[in-house]
């Protein structure tokens, strides 16, 4: 018994290190940016199931640009553009053509898996990963993405709460009819929200490929869906969404540590940890925020 307690204490103490904090930050960034982007899109009333696609295209584009130019800044900018491009397609289908938003999102995600593989093949002659690039690697505090993520978090919070676009986004996700009656373009506001949100999510993708110095097929591995869960748990409010993402990042880092420390638990079970946490949070945080009333409804 005492042994077990001592082991837990030792484990927790081992977590309180700089490298652990760095790991948390590194893991959190893609969740955070995808979820913030998702929160903005959803506040405008569009279900954002395409976060996975935005991460993946962002990751691919960042890797491709870093490979060709060697510029991290251009790679990040490219990732934002790639995310926004996915958003533009999403907007075209969901807003202009009135397609089902969930189907649109899932279709984009599936297309992203296939298309990035195809592009790998065409551009680099191999289907599963890009050549090595000079990315960011394991750096955390000197990584521009770390600080950019922080800035974008602030931007998302301020944008929703305190800007003209934010007010319009909040209105249009709640009562599109009343928003139109106030002389605000419903489609225009939604398009702006999707483009901004998707660009932010795309930057999250850059973090995926730049920290491992290369693109690996399907490297988003479901993070887009987890980010969407974080949007819901955070009650569609950027500050809370950011906190939830930090929680996910920490849980995943603990899980990684537990695996390497060898807890004796089956690794499959340990890997479930972040998702169990998600479920617990989902149950306890439910009711804190309300979904935008017009979420998922056309027009």
């Amino acid at each position, binding site marked *: 018994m005492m042994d077990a307690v001592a082991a837990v204490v030792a484990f927790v103490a081992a977590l309180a290190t700089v490298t652990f904090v760095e790991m948390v930050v590194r893991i959190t960034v893609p969740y955070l940016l995808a979820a913030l982007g998702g929160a903005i899109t959803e506040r405008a009333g569009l279900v954002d199931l395409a976060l996975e696609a935005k991460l993946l295209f962002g990751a691919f584009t960042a890797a491709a640009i870093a490979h060709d130019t060697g510029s991290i800044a251009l790679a990040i900018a490219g990732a934002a553009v790639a995310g926004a491009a996915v958003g533009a397609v999403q907007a075209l289908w969901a807003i202009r053509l009135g397609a089902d938003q969930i189907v649109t999102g899932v279709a984009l995600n599936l297309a992203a898996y296939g298309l990035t593989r195809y592009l790998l093949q065409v551009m680099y002659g191999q289907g599963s990963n890009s050549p090595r690039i000079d990315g960011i690697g394991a750096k955390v505090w000197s990584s521009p993405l770390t600080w950019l993520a922080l800035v974008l978090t602030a931007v998302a919070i*301020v944008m929703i709460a*305190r*800007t*003209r676009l*934010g*007010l*319009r986004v*909040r*209105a249009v996700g*709640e*009562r599109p*009819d*009343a*928003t*139109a*009656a*106030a*002389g*605000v*373009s419903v489609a225009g506001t939604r398009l702006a929200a999707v483009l901004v949100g998707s660009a932010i999510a795309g930057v999250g993708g850059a973090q995926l490929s730049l920290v491992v110095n290369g693109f690996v097929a399907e490297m988003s591995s479901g993070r887009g869906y987890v980010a969407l869960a974080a949007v819901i748990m955070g009650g569609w409010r950027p500050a809370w969404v950011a906190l939830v993402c930090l929680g996910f990042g920490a849980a995943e880092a603990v899980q990684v540590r537990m695996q390497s420390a060898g807890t004796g638990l089956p690794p499959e079970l340990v890997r479930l940890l972040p998702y169990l946490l998600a479920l617990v949070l989902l149950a306890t945080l439910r009711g804190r925020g*309300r979904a935008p*009333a017009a979420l998922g409804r056309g027009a």
Partner: protein
Amino acid sequence: MSAALVMRASKRFGDRDALVDARLEVAAGTVHAVVGENGAGKSTLLKIVYGLVRADRGQLAIGQRCDLARHGVAAAQALGVGMVHQHGMLVPTLTLAENAALGHEPVRRGLLDLAAARRDLARAAARLEQSLDPDACAGALSVGEQQRAEIVMVVARAQKLLILDEPTALLAPGEVDRLLALLRRIAGDGCAVVLVSHKLDEVAEVADAITVLRAGRTVAELARGVATREVARAMVGGEPPPTGAPPPLPPADAAVVLMVRGLAVHDLSGAATLRPGAGSAGGLRQVSFEVRAGEVVGIAGVEGNGQRELVQAVVGLVPAAAGRITLGGVDMTHATVAARRAAGLAHVAEDRHHHGLVLDATVADNVMLGRLDEVARGLTIDRTRVRTLAERALADLDVRPADPSLAARALSGGNQQKLVVARELGRAAVRAVVAAQPTRGVDLAAQARIHDRLRAAAAAGAAVLVISADLDELFALCHRVAVLHRGAIAGELAGDALRAADARATLGAWMVGAA
């Protein structure tokens, strides 16, 4: 005199004509009324002017020629047009200041200048002698308070043409007079005012000219001073229906069906304490009354004095903080909505969009709501029976168009209201009716029909509670009328006292707390 508005427009929704070359001409500096039956096309016509609905064909000039194909809300606003809509157009999750700013946000250093928005709104309210809290969340206000806020916001913006689509439906008598006086003043300042109303005495009092629509066509353009009967005749294209008398008095020993004892309900607008000033009074305190079988009891009062809390507590939508509610002698204080309905309680909701209808569902499905027991066949729904019920309900109150497969959203405002009444009163075995503003926004003929149905329900032995801001309605229906003021009953008139000449003055004084 120059024209503020000249238009002709045609509009089809699906295969139905809403407007057939309807014409409207409004002179600058005048108050112009647009009247017509429910579904005549009044809202559609004015939404075209405001740019919210696009006409199929026609011409439009608001001071200058407008391109109808390109006309939109922003363009209309730029020309100085403002519109108060028949159904609230506030975003419930935003504050009043944010709602007021939406579409023309004051910005300072790239950020929203909410302080300026707050100040602008407070100033606009002060100019109209209204008190409102710019930081209140719109959704926490009663529909009446929301409408007052909308009027304040729109009046502050409209410079050339102010359109009000049934703005008085939610106001108390004194407030109506103030609004009408305000409209005259605005017109006097040179801004044209277009007013849609079903209350013809109001129209006669304030309007310089009247345009009458029937079935999407302009059928008459009348000048000031035309008799109300004349206007009514033009509206229906024949003789308007007579108004009925209250149902016969129930026997004195009739059983008490609905009993409310010491009922207290927390303020639904979220303010915990009593706020000074008329208007929001902070929930319901210690209210007791009873309604016997066959009796019609009215609750009068200025919107926001506890009516909403009373209705929602009686029908089970909000919990009672204290007190007891019994239905047919059975304690229902903590019963669910479903249990109360099963016990025979019918509810005509004040807010038909929020509590009354599922707008995107069909008319037939709306008729069936809460009446599943009548259409269930084992685990499935008897669709033919649904259709029969729906057709009967539509015919009963003459809902137009009488098409059960239409979405409820596609009905005009008054026809939506008729649909709610038809459903609730058409249910089997109704023992008690709570009707909140049952004829809000319906035309004269429909009003008479709805009143008939309420009287018939009473005559058949139901206890009927009518909450209304319209004293005429209460006089026409009720055996007794109580006044709610600041969450308590300020007084009650019955029998001869209710028929006396000074009844209106007495009730009016109680309503504003002056007695």
